[in-house]
């Protein structure tokens, strides 16, 4: 009986921990990014809100011209992921990501 109770308690605690960890993982955001990444996120957010292929293309062009100047490896990955999502036609989701990146720079 005691063993059974302990098992249930352990399972409950573990489930709670996993839920909290999962929730944190999915809501952890981007954190602080470089000023140039912020500029890219702003352009991407506008391009995605407008579903504007031309605007998106300009961002890509700029990334080719400037390369990774001022971008960390992760930041470049995040920007590429947003562009890829937009290119796949998932504009709303891409806009949400770009907005999240901008929001994460706000200090309340």
């Amino acid at each position, binding site marked *: 009986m005691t063993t059974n109770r302990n098992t249930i308690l352990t399972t*409950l605690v573990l489930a709670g921990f996993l839920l909290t960890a999962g929730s944190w993982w999915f809501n952890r955001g981007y954190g602080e990014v470089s000023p*140039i990444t912020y500029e890219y996120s*702003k352009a991407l*957010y*506008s391009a995605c*809100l*407008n579903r504007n292929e031309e*605007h998106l293309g300009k961002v890509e062009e*700029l990334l080719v011209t400037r390369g990774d100047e001022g971008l960390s490896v992760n930041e470049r990955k995040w920007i590429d992921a947003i562009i890829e999502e937009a290119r796949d036609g998932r504009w*709303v989701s891409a806009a949400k990501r770009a907005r999240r990146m901008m929001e994460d720079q706000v200090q309340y």
Partner: protein
Amino acid sequence: MDTQRSRYAFTLIELLVVIAILGILTGMLLPAVQQIRAVARRISCANNMRQLGLAMHNYEGALGHFPPGFTSTPSRDGTAPSGVHIDPITWNAAPGWGWGAHLLPFVEGNNIHGDLDFAKPIWETKHREIIQTNLPVFLCPSSSGESQPFTVVDGDENPYSPDSVKPVVLGRSHYVASHGQESAWGPEAGSALSGQVFTDIYTFTTATVDIHGDVSRVADGPFYRNSKTQISEVSDGTTTSIFLGEHSSRLSDKTWVGVVPGATVHPRFSSPENGPDGAATLVLYHMGPSGGELDITGFPIIHPVNFPTYHVGQMYSEHPSGGNVCMGDGSVQFISESVDLITWAELSSINEGEVIGEWQ
């Protein structure tokens, strides 16, 4: 005996299960309750805006034009008649009364309106107390920021008054009037003499315009310094032109009273993009694109409600996912923060000939 006792007691597991079920039920119920409360607040806010929209039309009916964004002794060279305070940068000058103050007789504010001398500055001693009044029609219930009157500040956030006697304290507003796509509340409104404007929002063509203190040369919305917009000038249509918007005091201070020349409006939280802005943003906002505001790719920045740049001169609402606007016909619409940017820009101007299709 023991068996009997255990039958009437809860085990720890039973208790935990009950708590978990209650937790889940509360978790399911709370968002629904919050949502209903948010809807109620949004409706209350829309009701305020509808009253203000109606008041604007009553004002227009009585005087032949909509109220001015704010009044300022006109100056074309940065000078003002003796005794009239003028800000040397923006050329904003006394008296400063804003659109909200002009609407008072039409929103049951006759008792306050009667005590105001519109020829005298808003910071005149006799006005000091009455301008601190908070009027419910100017307050949105969703705004989580300050709701009390606020002290006007200068560029260093020090309390400010043009007559250096005592800082000016103003009654609050959560509603601001539309200057249109373009903004003109910095040096371009005064000492810079000229400013850049977008002449075509589809091709992003810009032009430099000589302003020389006359902001009507750049403003493409219904309200600006000394505006007297007539209904016939709203050629884009009153149903498709935004007149009023929201600005929660969580982002910055706004007032129904007017503009104190030389004052500065500071954001309450910082983004990489925002900072202090001119005194005209105490009563006005713009929607973009505005000359010179370009993103990294050269595209103009258009900022609909809650755009995460969080300028003090933009719309900012705390209703979930958007904000209320009052159109030129007095109707109130809820606009999503993910509205199409070009549509938003089209709705911002009153007479640029943009054809707007179905947008809601």
